C-alpha cells in the first residue's frame, strides 16, 4: 500500500535523509530550529512552515543554524560556504524576501562559475515558500519564479506534489549548482504517495500528469492542481488535454512541451506568476518560436492580472487562476483552432 505523506513531511524526510548521508550539508535559516537563546523549548518551530522540524535535534546546532533577520548575511554566508566545501540548504521564509538579498543569488552564486572560468562550484539550495491563497497580502504571496528563471546560472525548481517534492529536493541538494527551490504555501498540507527510500528526480524532466491529444496544458506548482481539475472536467466534455508539469523551470524540459504541442497543436499555459515577462510568457514564446508550425490556435495564457496580490479573500480568489478560467481558456483554444 502506498505510503501517504504531506508535502511538508516529504520535504522534511528529504532533508533528514540527505543530511544523514552527507555531513557537508548544513541547514540555515530563520527559526528553522526555533527558540534559540530563549528560556523555553529549543527547536520550537522547525521553520515558519514546519519543514525543518526535528533537524536540530538530530543534527545539532553545528549543522542546523538559526539566524538573525539578516537575509543577505545568511544567504551570502551560505553561498560563500558552498564555494568553500559545504552544501548549505537555506530557508528563505518567503520568496518575497528575495528583495532584500537578491544580490547574493543573482550576482554572486549564479555568476561565480562563469566569472571564475569554470573553477567554482556553488552547491547551495535556497528553499522558499511562495504563492497566493493565504490572505497574506501583497508582500507574502508572490510567485517569483520568473525572476529566478531569468537569471543565467540559477536553477529553479517547483514541485507540485509530495512525491516530486521529496525527489526534487534530494536532487537539488545533490546538484552542484545554485538552486532555488520553491514550495507553494498551499501545498504543504497536500497529501500523496511518498516512498520511504531516498530518490532523486532529475531536473529538466517534465512530468506528464495526464496524456491527451487535443490541447497541451502547461502548469507548475499549485497550478498543476487547478489545471488537473479543469482537464478532468474537460475530459467529460470530450476534450482530452495533455497536462504537463515541467517541475523545473530552469533547466526547462522544452522537448516534452514541444513534442506535446506537435501532437495537439494547441497550448494553454497556466501560471501563478505575474504575466509580464513571466513564465507563462516564456512558454508561450517557446511555442511561438519553436513549435509555430504545429500550432493551430493562439496560445492561451492563464495568469493573474498585472496587479499585486490583494488581501481580501474575494479578490485573491479572483486573482488566482482557477479551474474555470483554465477550462475557458482550453475551450477558447479549441474554438479558435484551424
Amino acid at each position: 500500500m502506498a505510503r501517504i505523506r504531506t508535502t511538508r513531511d516529504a520535504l522534511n524526510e528529504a532533508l533528514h535523509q540527505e543530511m544523514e548521508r552527507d555531513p557537508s550539508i548544513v541547514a540555515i535559516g530563520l527559526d528553522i530550529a526555533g527558540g534559540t537563546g530563549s528560556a523555553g523549548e529549543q527547536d520550537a518551530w522547525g521553520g515558519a512552515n514546519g519543514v525543518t522540524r526535528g533537524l536540530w535535534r538530530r543534527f545539532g546546532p553545528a549543522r542546523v543554524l538559526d539566524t538573525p533577520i539578516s537575509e543577505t548575511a545568511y544567504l551570502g554566508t551560505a553561498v560563500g560556504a558552498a564555494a568553500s566545501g559545504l552544501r548549505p540548504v537555506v530557508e528563505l521564509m518567503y520568496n518575497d524576501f528575495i528583495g532584500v538579498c537578491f544580490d547574493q543569488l543573482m550576482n554572486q552564486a549564479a555568476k561565480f562559475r562563469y566569472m571564475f572560468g569554470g573553477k567554482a562550484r556553488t552547491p547551495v539550495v535556497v528553499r522558499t515558500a511562495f504563492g497566493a491563497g493565504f490572505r497574506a497580502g501583497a508582500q507574502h504571496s508572490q510567485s517569483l519564479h520568473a525572476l529566478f528563471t531569468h537569471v543565467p546560472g540559477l536553477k529553479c525548481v517547483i514541485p507540485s506534489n509530495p512525491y516530486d517534492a521529496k525527489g526534487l529536493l534530494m536532487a537539488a541538494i545533490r546538484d552542484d549548482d545554485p538552486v532555488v527551490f520553491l514550495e507553494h504555501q498551499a501545498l504543504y498540507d497536500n497529501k500523496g504517495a511518498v516512498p520511504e527510500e531516498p530518490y532523486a528526480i532529475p531536473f529538466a524532466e517534465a512530468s506528464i500528469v495526464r496524456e491527451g491529444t487535443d490541447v497541451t496544458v502547461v502548469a507548475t506548482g499549485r497550478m498543476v492542481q487547478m489545471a488537473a481539475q479543469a482537464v478532468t472536467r474537460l475530459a467529460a466534455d470530450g476534450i482530452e488535454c495533455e497536462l504537463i508539469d515541467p517541475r523545473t523551470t530552469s533547466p526547462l524540459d522544452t522537448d516534452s512541451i514541444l513534442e506535446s504541442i506537435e501532437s495537439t497543436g494547441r497550448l494553454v499555459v497556466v501560471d501563478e506568476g505575474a504575466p509580464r515577462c513571466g513564465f507563462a510568457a516564456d512558454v508561450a514564446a517557446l511555442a511561438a518560436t519553436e513549435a509555430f508550425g504545429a500550432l493551430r490556435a493562439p496560445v492561451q495564457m492563464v495568469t493573474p492580472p498585472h496587479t499585486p496580490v490583494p488581501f481580501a479573500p474575494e479578490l485573491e480568489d479572483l486573482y488566482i487562476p482557477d479551474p474555470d478560467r483554465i477550462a475557458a481558456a482550453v475551450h477558447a483554444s479549441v474554438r479558435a483552432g484551424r
Partner: protein
Amino acid sequence: MSISGLQLDREQLLEAYRRMRTIRVFEETVREEFEAGRMPGFVHLYAGEEAVAVGVCMHLDDADRIVSTHRGHGHCIAKGVEVPGMMKELHARRDGVCHGKGGSMHIADLDRGMMGANAIVGAGAPLACGAALAAKTLGTGKVGVSFLGDGAANQGAVLESLNLASIWSLPVVFVFENNGYAESTASSWAIAGGEVVRRAEAFAMPGYSVDGTDFFAVFDAMGQAIDRARRGEGPSLIEARTVRFFGHHEGDSQTYRGTNEVESARADRDCLVRFRERVLGAKVLDPAGLDAEDTAITTMVANALAAARAAPPPEPGDLTADVYVSY
C-alpha cells in the same frame, strides 16, 4: 524643551490612557475574532506593548509620519487611525481603511501620517527617513518615526538607515520595540552585544534605553529625541524594552517561552496597570473616570466589530483598480 510625561495635563493623560486601552481592547477583540475563524490572514498582536506606541505618538500630529511593522495595529491607534476603518480593513471590507486590499500586515492611513504596517522586516526604516527628508526639504518642521522590532536591528536596511539619517541629520527617530523575541528567537542571542542601543553610539546618535512598559519613560525619551529632530540636529534611537502578551502571530504555540514568563509579565509589567497606578497615585486622574473610559472603549470597539462584520467585501472590479495612478 520637551515636557516630561508627568507634566502632561489631565486631558492629555486621559488621551494617552484612552489610546492604550483602545489598543488593548482592539487586540483582544481581534484575537477572538481571528480564533473564531472570522478574520482572514495573519495577525500579529500588540497587546502588552501599548505604552511604546502611545508614549511615542503622543508627541506627534497628523503631519508627522510614522512607519510601522508587521505588528501595526497599536501604531495605527496611537497615531489616530480610526478603529472602525481598521476593523473593517482587518475583515477585508470594501470600506476598510485600505479598501480591504492591505489587511493587517499593510494597514495604512496616510491622512493620519501612518505610512503603513510593513510585512518586510526592517523595510520601514528607510521609508521613515524619506518622510523625514521630505519634512526637512519642505521645511515643515515635522518628523518621521520608524517603529522597529528587536529583530529588525539586524537587517541591513535598518543599519544603513541609521548611518544615512545620521550623516544627513534627518529629523527621524528610530524606535526599537525590544519584546525579547523575533518570532521564536531571543533578541539577546540574535543581537550581537545583546542590546540595540549600543548601535546608536556606533552611528553617532543619542541612544535611549527605556522600560517600554512605562509610558512616562517612553514619553520622556521621545520628547528628547523629537526636540533634537525638530532642532535640526538629526536622528535618535530609542530602545524600549517591552513584552508581547500573545504569540508572535495568532497560532504560535510559544513553547520557546519560559515557564510563567507571560503570566508574570502580565502580573508585573502590564503597562496599563502601571499607568493607572501612576496617575491614580499622583491623583491626576480618578478611578471612576478611567473606568468610564474603559466602558466607552469597549462599546466603541464592539460597535466597530459589528459594523465590520456587516460591511460588504470589495467588488470584483477592485482587483485591477489602483495599481497605478495612470497606466
